[in-house]
């Protein structure tokens, strides 16, 4: 037992307790949390910093405004409804289109039809705080539905794959792609059963994947190989992630991005408590990279410089034998 712990320690694997005490409590001051926990604030900050985010169609903050929903989306065929303070992908509704015959009937990403009334109820639940972290009242965001880039079409089952970059004090430390599966209901959340694939920071190429806590090499639904995909505009993605630090001030940050077919990489959200499965996806511990960043930390470096340093410093370890 202690032998395993020792090996993990040597391989630089970060545990939950260490993440919480040494990184989140130390580097992420509580007062900055709203910047990432409330997606309306995140979006505004990112826009102010000139970063690319999905367009916001509207925000519903009161039960009384729920009926405005139809007006907000009247011009839209597809959109996403999400709680501003949701976590772990809960409460997100992806509408990909409308019924051909009834304008007030919507088609979800998984193909099911849903009525306007049902959507309104869902928005009411969001506003009532069902999906918010604290259980308090919340806001519902209605925004642009990303049409995902074909890069990952072979290794995704419905939904939108996203890219998670963990940024330590402004330096991208580790990255992975999260690929939706049938089990995850098209959502890119690992605990729902999405596949996470590690990404080589230097080249932007995917490594092998992880499903729950085990390593997989193929996507469970499509059977395509997960490894070896080249992520487009990787430089821009790393720079955006590095810039996330300047925007939020959070020293231990997870930046989630998607690649839109037309608009390129967009920042979806940021996370002050990024999970640790990214280590399994990459087959290596993050603690050793964090230690390296502490050594080379330079407070004056620009996001571009930090992204470049990360590319230089963190090439993928020798490919895992499997």
């Amino acid at each position, binding site marked *: 037992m202690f032998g395993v712990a020792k090996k*993990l320690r040597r391989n630089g694997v970060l545990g939950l307790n*260490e993440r919480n005490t*040494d990184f989140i409590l130390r580097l992420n001051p509580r007062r900055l949390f709203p910047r990432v926990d409330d997606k309306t604030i995140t979006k505004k900050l990112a826009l102010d910093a000139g970063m690319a985010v999905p367009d916001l169609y509207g925000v519903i903050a009161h039960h009384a405004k729920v009926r405005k929903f139809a007006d907000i989306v009247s011009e839209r065929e597809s959109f996403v409804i999400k709680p501003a303070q949701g976590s772990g992908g*809960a409460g997100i509704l992806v509408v990909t289109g409308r019924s051909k015959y009834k304008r007030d009937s919507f088609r979800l990403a998984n193909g099911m039809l849903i009525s306007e009334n049902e959507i309104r109820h869902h928005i009411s639940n969001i506003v009532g705080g069902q999906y918010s972290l604290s259980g308090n009242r919340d806001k519902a965001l209605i925004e642009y539905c990303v049409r995902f880039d074909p890069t990952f079409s072979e290794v995704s089952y419905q939904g939108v794959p996203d890219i998670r970059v963990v940024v330590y004090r402004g330096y991208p430390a580790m990255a992975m792609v999260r690929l939706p599966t049938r089990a995850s209901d098209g959502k890119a959340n690992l*605990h729902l059963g999405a596949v996470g694939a590690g990404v080589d920071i230097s080249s932007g190429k995917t490594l092998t994947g992880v499903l729950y806590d085990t*390593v997989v090499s193929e996507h469970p639904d499509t059977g395509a190989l997960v490894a070896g995909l080249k992520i487009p505009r990787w430089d821009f993605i790393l720079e955006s992630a590095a810039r996330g630090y300047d925007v939020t001030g959070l020293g231990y940050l997870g930046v989630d991005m998607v690649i839109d077919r037309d608009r390129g990489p967009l920042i979806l959200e940021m996370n002050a408590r990024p999970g640790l499965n990214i280590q399994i996806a990459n087959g290596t511990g993050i603690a050793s990279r964090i230690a390296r960043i502490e050594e080379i930390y330079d407070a004056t470096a620009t996001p571009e410089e930090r992204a470049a340093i990360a590319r230089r410093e963190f090439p993928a370890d020798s490919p895992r034998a499997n």
Partner: protein
Amino acid sequence: MKQRYVYLLAALLAAIGLSAFFYKWQVLGFPLTEDRETPVWTIESAVSFDSGPGTIKVQLQVPTLTPGFRMLNENSVSRGYSFSLNYGSGGREAQWAIRRADGEQTIYYRISVYEDDSVDQWDITPPFPPLPVINEPMKTAVDVLVDDVYDHSADTASFTTELLRRMNDPSPDPNVELLLSGVDSGAGFLEIMTTMLAAARIPARIVRGFHLAGRQRSAQLVPWLEVHDGDQWLYFNPVTGEQALPKRFLVWWRGNESLVNVEGGSNVAVEFAIRENHVDALAIAEKQAAKRGSIALDLSLYSLPIQTQAVYSVLLMIPIGALVMVFMRTFIGIDAFGTFMPVLIALAFRETKLFWGVILFTMLVALGLMIRFMLDRLRLLLVPRLSAVLIVVVALMLFISLMSHRLGLETGLSVALFPMVIIAMTIERMSVVWEERGAAVALREGLGSLFVAIVAYIFMGMAWLEHLIFTFPEMLLIILAIVVLAGRYTGYRLTELRRFKELSAD
């Protein structure tokens, strides 16, 4: 930097808690275990005499310094007499006085003592005794004997032992025979001994006391020899010469004063009776603390009304439950609903007992979940829905109680003790997790909660632990110290070793 403050704080808390604990345990004698009883001896001396016509004054020697024993209390029963305790030449004296009395009188003095090894002999160093005035031919016999024994000994102790050996010799030499010719009692023998020790310039005195063993209706005072070697008093068995105070020997008084002295009375007799009973060690400790005016007593939970005590004996176990929770979360990594829900469930288990507690809890949550899923179709808003679940939980509790009562299972009635709001929240959380993360995760967390609750219940139900915390509430500081330290634990959780097993390759 911060790490150091944490260690400092934890050390400080632990130090305060431990020192208060040790003080109460070692100095005040608060018992570590609940059922510890200490034997307490009550010695009753009854002085009886026929009253004379005038004023009556009674003096009785009572225990002053009692090595190995501590006094619990003392009192006197004497109708119409004034009573006072004074210091006389031989130690404490109880004094009674009355202007007039008729007929046979009996005065009681009662003292209760218990064993306490920490009570040492504390006494003044006596001056060298003056050379005794002895008439011939005794004087020659004493001088010869003392000179001879002096040659055959090295120090006070060996002198005394040697002297006692010769005096007790079954075939004594002529000098000893001469000295002992008029002696017919143990006390008389000791008087000769002290005279001879005085002739050798060794301070000595007679000690009288009791062997405390069980119940004795008329206990006999046993004389013992006490000799001062310049540093301390040494005890000698006057018959064997053995240098020791017998086990459980209560010293009643010292010196040559007579035990009782009655002015204005005749036919004086003193009877001693000894009774042994067992008293809760806690009661003794409290008396002790009270006698010292210790603040520990004012802060003791035992000074609260009994009902409040009962509440606190339960409440004080909650930190133990919280500690279990900390271990489960931080060191093992078991997922559970809510931070303290398992602790509250464990609290309810105290009343229902484990088996029924688990059954009732499972039943309640399962039924509640079923109804919660039905409510889901109604698409209710959050707060009304939570309230609906709460009402359903109350109704379910009522239903379970009624059913079990009809079936003659009275344990089912205790379902009412479950914290219903907490259970309603649990059901709500569980159903949300069920929907969002799947049945497997919901059930795993549900079982995790139940498991933590069971472990917390086992710890919170330990009677000795409960007693310990209740008697020594300063233990809370120690628990706090542990929790603070755990809050800075950065090692892996036990479950993470499995989770990251892919990364543990060499």
